[in-house]
């Protein structure tokens, strides 16, 4: 292959010399174009080829990377296009538009996701979703000896999407649209299953995917300069052909009451979602516009429930009901009014309501099976989460001149929740911004926002009942004070040169609790220079610095006896001992650098594009203990490092008005050090006494060079 590739490259490079006398220096602009080429990739030693091709297919071979066809007639247009034909990331589309009458579009798209080409497993998938392992291997002592027999397999999935849409122009201002989209998701993704905590062996698995989603949309839309209206029906049907995952226990091959030879878990069930919506907007006097949107939807899922366990040695526990009977009704509304009664003043008011009315009956169990290995008793009831959210935003913009706009705004979001520890939260938000954009040489944008969220009542007894600290507040609904500020300045001293500087600073604090996420800060700075000395030349450089800090707090302790309030004041309980507190302080610093240079016909008949991107990340997780701690000093985890270098060059030489030849080159270099996802080399952790059977899906570095040689033909 490599010889063929080199010969083809050489042949292509010879073409321009003989054709240089042609006069035309550009394509004919007919919209018809096709790129033929040949591509090859070389990798550095030990490179993770899958990671390089994670969302794309860069295999060696002949390529038809770019196809465009356009044909126009009297009142109609036909377009067809395709990308990466014949490869896993191929896509194609065609559209026919008879203007003023009908437009029909068909699209086909493939999106690969390549996890690993070096994953290994001791399992064999006998039917979709059922993984077995030789009985002789199913023990902690025998397992390590079998690793040499592990089968290497590609871990990948692919999403394929087909869409057909037709728009009828019923009148000059009225359209009827019908669209059907089918998405298939096939392949496998990393997954895992376990049989318990102490002494059990969890196993990584390649969960099979065979899913299909059908989305249907039908809409009637009317609009002109004075108003618009739309009614729509949207339906989405998700179907999963693999709804359970069964796998052999790596630690035992026989079933007993307290141990299972197999495990089984439920995967995503079939679901339906149907929504009816109506929306409209109306232009009113005083440069005003009112808009409304209302939708009502139903989400339903009624899959048959699996038994409590697959373990035949356990007693059969009767299911409270045979199917999930999951059902949620969703109502959404948006109303907005914008008005500019005089040119220098502009008002906006917006109200949103969203209700997720989860009507799934509670699932009450008194007996169940943990990990297919232990029958347990107690009282457990499911919590079908639901909420209603009301949001209001009001803003006023004052623009004394066309160069400046000053905005002040207020927002309020109230959320009522079902089955959460905090029943209702109210967040008040004030914001102010300044935008100066009309001056040619200077653009300034700045916004400041302060938000305060408070929740009540707090059902802290619920936390105690599950063994959690009553002072814990889940950070997504806890009290929160947040300040955010963003500023951006662009200076263009001469039309060919501009500088831009931006800064974003954010701070979040969570008052009223000593546990969980305590604060979350970020700082982002960017600086860039763009130089465009003439239309055919442009250069850009950008630098970025980002820092994210998060502090969280915990207490390593056993729950209170019976998890009752009576023991909350008992100083002998670990649960109440602040000396057992610990924190984790995360600092994530990311630096970026980008540079681009476009030389479009700066050299006759030649287009050159060059780019380079660098992103480096370093994250530290530092444990801290209380000053008078009784907890053993932890061994700090090493920092996580990521570094990506990406360079590209694309050169195209226009031989004549029909032909261009070109070369493209991509260089990717990725380096990683990750204590949790770095390559261990083996398939068990810890090696001596495995608690986790791995399949080797890890973060590994790579270096790759991809080169294309291309001929572009225009007709």
């Amino acid at each position, binding site marked *: 292959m490599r010889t063929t590739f080199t010969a083809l490259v050489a042949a292509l490079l010879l073409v321009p010399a003989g054709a240089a006398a042609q006069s035309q220096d550009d394509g004919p602009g007919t919209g018809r174009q096709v790129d033929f080429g040949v591509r090859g990739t070389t990798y550095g030693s030990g490179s993770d080829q899958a990671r390089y091709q994670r969302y794309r297919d860069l295999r060696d071979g002949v390529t038809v990377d770019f196809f465009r066809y356009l044909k126009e007639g009297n009142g109609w247009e036909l377009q067809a296009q395709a990308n990466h034909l014949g490869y896993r990331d191929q896509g194609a589309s065609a559209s026919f538009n008879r203007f003023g009458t009908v437009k029909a579009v068909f699209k086909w798209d493939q999106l690969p996701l390549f996890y690993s080409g070096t994953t290994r497993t001791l399992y064999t998938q006998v039917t979709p979703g059922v993984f077995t392992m030789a009985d002789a291997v199913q023990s902690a002592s025998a397992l390590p000896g079998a690793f040499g027999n592990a089968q290497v397999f590609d871990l990948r999935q692919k999403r394929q999407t087909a869409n057909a849409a037709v728009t009828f122009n019923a009148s000059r201002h009225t359209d009827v649209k019908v669209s059907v989209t089918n998405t298939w998701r096939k392949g496998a993704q990393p997954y895992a299953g376990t049989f318990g905590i102490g002494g059990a062996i969890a196993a990584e698995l390649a969960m099979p995917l065979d899913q299909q989603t059908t989305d249907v949309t039908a809409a009637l839309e009317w609009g002109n300069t004075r108003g618009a209206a739309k009614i729509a029906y949207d339906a989405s049907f998700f179907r999963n052909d693999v709804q359970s995952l069964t796998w052999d226990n790596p630690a035992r091959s026989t079933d007993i009451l307290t141990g299972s030879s197999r495990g089984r878990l439920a995967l995503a069930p079939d679901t339906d979602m149907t929504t009816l919506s109506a929306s409209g907007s109306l232009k009113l006097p005083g440069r005003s516009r009112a808009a409304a949107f209302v939708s009502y939807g139903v989400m339903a899922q009624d899959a048959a429930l699996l038994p409590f366990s697959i373990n035949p040695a356990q007693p059969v526990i009767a299911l409270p009901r045979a199917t999930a009977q999951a059902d949620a009704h969703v109502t959404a509304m948006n109303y907005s009014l914008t008005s500019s009664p005089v040119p220098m003043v502009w008002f906006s008011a917006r109200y949103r309501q969203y209700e997720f009315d989860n009507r799934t009956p509670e699932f009450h169990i008194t007996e169940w099976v943990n990990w297919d290995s232990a029958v347990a008793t107690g009282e457990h009831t*499911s919590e079908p989460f639901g909420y209603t959210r009301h949001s209001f935003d009001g803003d006023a913009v004052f623009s004394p001149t066309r160069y400046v706009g000053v905005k002040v705004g207020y927002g309020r979001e109230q959320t009522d929740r079902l089955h959460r520890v905090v029943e209702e939260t109210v967040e008040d938000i004030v914001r102010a911004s300044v935008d100066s954009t009309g001056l040619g040489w200077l653009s300034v944008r700045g916004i400041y926002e302060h938000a305060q969220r408070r929740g009540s009542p707090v059902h802290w007894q619920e936390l105690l009942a599950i063994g959690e600290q009553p002072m814990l507040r889940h950070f997504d609904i806890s009290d929160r004070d947040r300040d955010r500020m963003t500023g951006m300045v662009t200076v263009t001293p001469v039309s060919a040169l501009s500088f831009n500087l931006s800064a974003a600073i954010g701070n979040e604090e969570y008052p009223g609790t000593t546990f969980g996420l305590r604060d979350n800060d970020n700082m982002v700075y960017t600086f860039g220079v763009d130089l465009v000395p003439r239309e055919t030349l442009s250069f850009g450089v950008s630098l970025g610095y980002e820092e994210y800090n998060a502090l*969280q707090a915990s207490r390593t302790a056993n729950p209170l006896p019976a998890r009752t309030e009576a023991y909350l004041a008992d100083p002998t309980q670990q649960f109440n001992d602040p000396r057992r507190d610990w924190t984790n302080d995360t600092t994530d610093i990311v630096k970026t650098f980008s540079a681009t240079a476009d030389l479009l016909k700066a050299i006759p008949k030649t287009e050159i594009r060059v780019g380079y991107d660098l992103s480096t990340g370093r994250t530290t997780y530092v444990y801290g203990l209380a000053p008078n701690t009784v907890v053993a000093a932890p061994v700090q985890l090493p920092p996580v490092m990521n570094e990506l270098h990406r360079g590209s060059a694309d050169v195209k030489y226009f031989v004549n008005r029909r032909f261009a030849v070109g070369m493209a080159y991509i260089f990717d270099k990725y380096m990683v050090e990750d204590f949790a996802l770095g390559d261990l080399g083996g398939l068990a952790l*810890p090696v001596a006494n495995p608690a986790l059977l791995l399949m080797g899906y890890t973060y590994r570095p790579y270096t790759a060079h991809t080169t294309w040689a291309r001929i572009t033909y225009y007709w």
Partner: protein
Amino acid sequence: MRSKISPSVLILCALAVWGTALGLVSTGDVLAAAAPAQPPKQGQPPAADYAGEATCLTCHEDQAYKATAHGRAFNARTPAANQGCESCHGAGKAHAESGDPALILRFSAVPAAEASEACTSCHNRASHALWDGSAHDQRNISCVSCHNVHTPKGEPQLAARTQQQLCSNCHRNVTNRQYRFNHMPVREGNLTCSSCHNVHGSTNVRLLRAGTTIDESCTSCHAEKRGPYLWEHAPVSESCITCHDAHGSNNDRMLVSKQPFLCQRCHVTSRHPPTIYEGYQLQNSQNANKIYSRSCTVCHQLVHGSNAPSGKALLR
């Protein structure tokens, strides 16, 4: 917690208001606007205030638009099929005769709202229907801030070659995240910013294109996670971005923090979560399976919800 007014009542009220408004205006001048005075076609003598495209091009030949979508004269909705340059810039006879730039609509010289109003006189449906009052409109951004109808560098009539380049002018801190280890397939060209966002305005938050919440937007592709499930996980019902950064992250599965630390932000005491999972255990303990690889989700795989009767701890 349930709303005190029935949703159906609210819907009916809203529809009644909306329908009444439409009904009122439909008898008035709204529908009249549906049939605007037909401007003279190309090739016909210009109306009194119009100079005609040929006149415009005598001075502005570099501003031709024939190669763009606006230049398709066979489409009755395009400027080329109507008043040519003056479809957008307004009648220009006075400007042509005097040369006074103040007598013609120059998009770069008028307030952003005024520039956008000219564009939305045609682009007022589908994805453009909610431009007025949208997040970008509120920040003095006009259509021509991002689009260049005369010399576009990228589709659709963009002022930059790609959407990422264009959006990075203001959102560099977001577009930089496509270079994180875990990212949406944007830098590979399979998705663009507008795959998820409708920058012209939307009924969702954060200008999201699909649905009316962040969750609905995400599950429009990740339908397997939408549920409802028998056993649910509270943050999933709240918002996907509680745990995920959709623009990219160096953490596995685009999580906002690495596991187990992310999970320990809420699970601080109960059972094993409050354990300090540190360097010694990583090498020497069976607890290593709570730090290494999928960490907490080695066992609690079903964090998005479980349909198994024994799935209360999202283990099955």
